[in-house]
């Protein structure tokens, strides 16, 4: 006997059975899509910026013609004379003039360089020359530099010696501003970090605003370059 699936005549029509996948499948796919898009956008927006750096293009300013490594003698934080040209000859050197009471530029430059050098395998000597010899004793400079990197070299001297050290690289000598009621004062000074390459030439200067990843991108390329003169356009 044949069976029929037809509803009983006269009975109300039964609701159509649901077709297609259940609704929660759509929700799972939607949430998965949202998670994927979130991840992709996050990586795109927040990812490291170092990938785009080019070794052929410096974040600092190329100096032309490149001046010779400056020559001056100051006192290091152990109290010994430090002949800058002789002690750093043939080495990649970052030279910065500043002062330990500086509220912004100096600590930011030092911290940025220290943290960048932590991340790369580059032999570079960092030399800090005070522009405030009245307050920056060797002990104070040492304690301050140690907060960034104990290997950083700190130099001071008499006001005349310090001024001569600034003139040696072609800088305008720093200006001490009038003290406030509490005796505090600021010092107006150049904000650039001078990069002296192993050929004993000052090829680059990095101004305030240079970031960690700028140093990380540039320093290995600077150190790798065997013939700096060939790079000068």
């Amino acid at each position: 006997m044949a069976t029929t699936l037809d509803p009983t005549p006269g009975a109300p029509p039964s609701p159509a059975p649901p077709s297609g996948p259940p609704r929660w499948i759509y929700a799972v796919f939607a949430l998965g899509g949202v998670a994927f898009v979130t991840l992709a956008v996050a990586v795109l927006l927040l990812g490291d910026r170092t990938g785009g750096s080019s070794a052929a293009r410096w974040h600092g300013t190329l100096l032309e013609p490149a001046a010779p490594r400056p020559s001056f003698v100051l006192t290091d934080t152990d109290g010994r004379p430090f002949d800058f040209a002789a002690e750093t000859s043939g080495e990649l050197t970052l030279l910065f003039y500043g002062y330990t009471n500086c509220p912004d530029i100096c600590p930011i430059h030092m911290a940025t360089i220290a943290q960048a050098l932590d991340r790369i395998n580059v032999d570079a000597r960092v030399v800090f020359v005070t522009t405030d010899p009245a307050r920056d004793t060797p002990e104070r400079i040492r304690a301050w530099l140690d907060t960034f990197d104990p290997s950083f070299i700190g130099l001071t001297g008499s006001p005349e010696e310090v001024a001569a050290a600034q003139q040696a690289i072609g800088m305008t000598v720093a200006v001490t501003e009038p003290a406030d009621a509490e005796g505090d004062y600021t010092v107006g000074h150049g904000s650039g970090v001078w990069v002296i390459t192993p050929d004993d030439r000052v090829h680059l200067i990095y101004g305030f605003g240079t970031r960690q990843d700028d140093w990380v991108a540039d320093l290995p390329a600077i150190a790798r370059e065997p013939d700096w003169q060939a790079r000068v356009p």
Partner: protein
Amino acid sequence: MTWWCSASTEPWSWGFRAYPGIWVLMTALIVGYVAIWRRHRPQTLTAADRRKPLWFGLGMAVLWGATDWPLGTLGAGYLASAHMVQYMLYTLVAGPLLLLGTPEWVARPVVTRLRLEGVLRIAAKPLVAGVVFNLILLGTHAPFTVDTFRASQFGSFTLDMLWIGSGLLLWLPLLGPLPEHVHPSPAVRCIYLFLASGALPMVPGGIITFSSFPLYATYELAPRVHDISATTDQQAAGILMKIGNIPIVWGYIFVTFVRWATTDRQASATTARQQRSTPEPLARH
């Protein structure tokens, strides 16, 4: 005098800085709330209605505290971690408190007057709210956005407004003053909050925490605050984004489940009582 917090090269100090623009906005919000309350206040207030001003006041206090000196100043130009605290306060504390503090009879005239019914009906869908909230989170924490917007007062103001708006949006399907915006299912509400505010922000939070370099020039090159390094500051910001939401998100989920279970139990007890009190049909012989 500046009217809104923005990035500054001035060394950080705990000296007070005035931002009249913030005072004007906060005062306008409070005055507007009071005015609408007085105008549309029903004859009799329920106990819940009487608690609303307290929630609103707390929300305004958090909003003001997150925007003004010192947190606003620190977040706008000195510390990425302060920036993140601001964001968390806007989106996880001020947002829900302001919604909790707004009675339906205050919200409805505003929504009607501004013709927001259609927009809010779509925005209150959990999927829409969650996606938009996270897109704002990602967009406003991208280095380019932060460095560009925080550099000016108007940009900084825009960023703060976006955060406040996204905080209100996040909580709209959960605590919205208009009942038609609140999702009826407690389970959906909990899953939504966990995904939108707990799980997805862990991705950018992780990237910020484990990034090799400071992502934001604004904070990397800002005068240091109490010798906190840019890297440490950024890691703190990332950790905050990753796990700072836990107390709020899980607190909400806990409360929702407890209420759900309580309601369920009461409903079951009522049903059982009704069944016991219904006389059994007489047997026919």
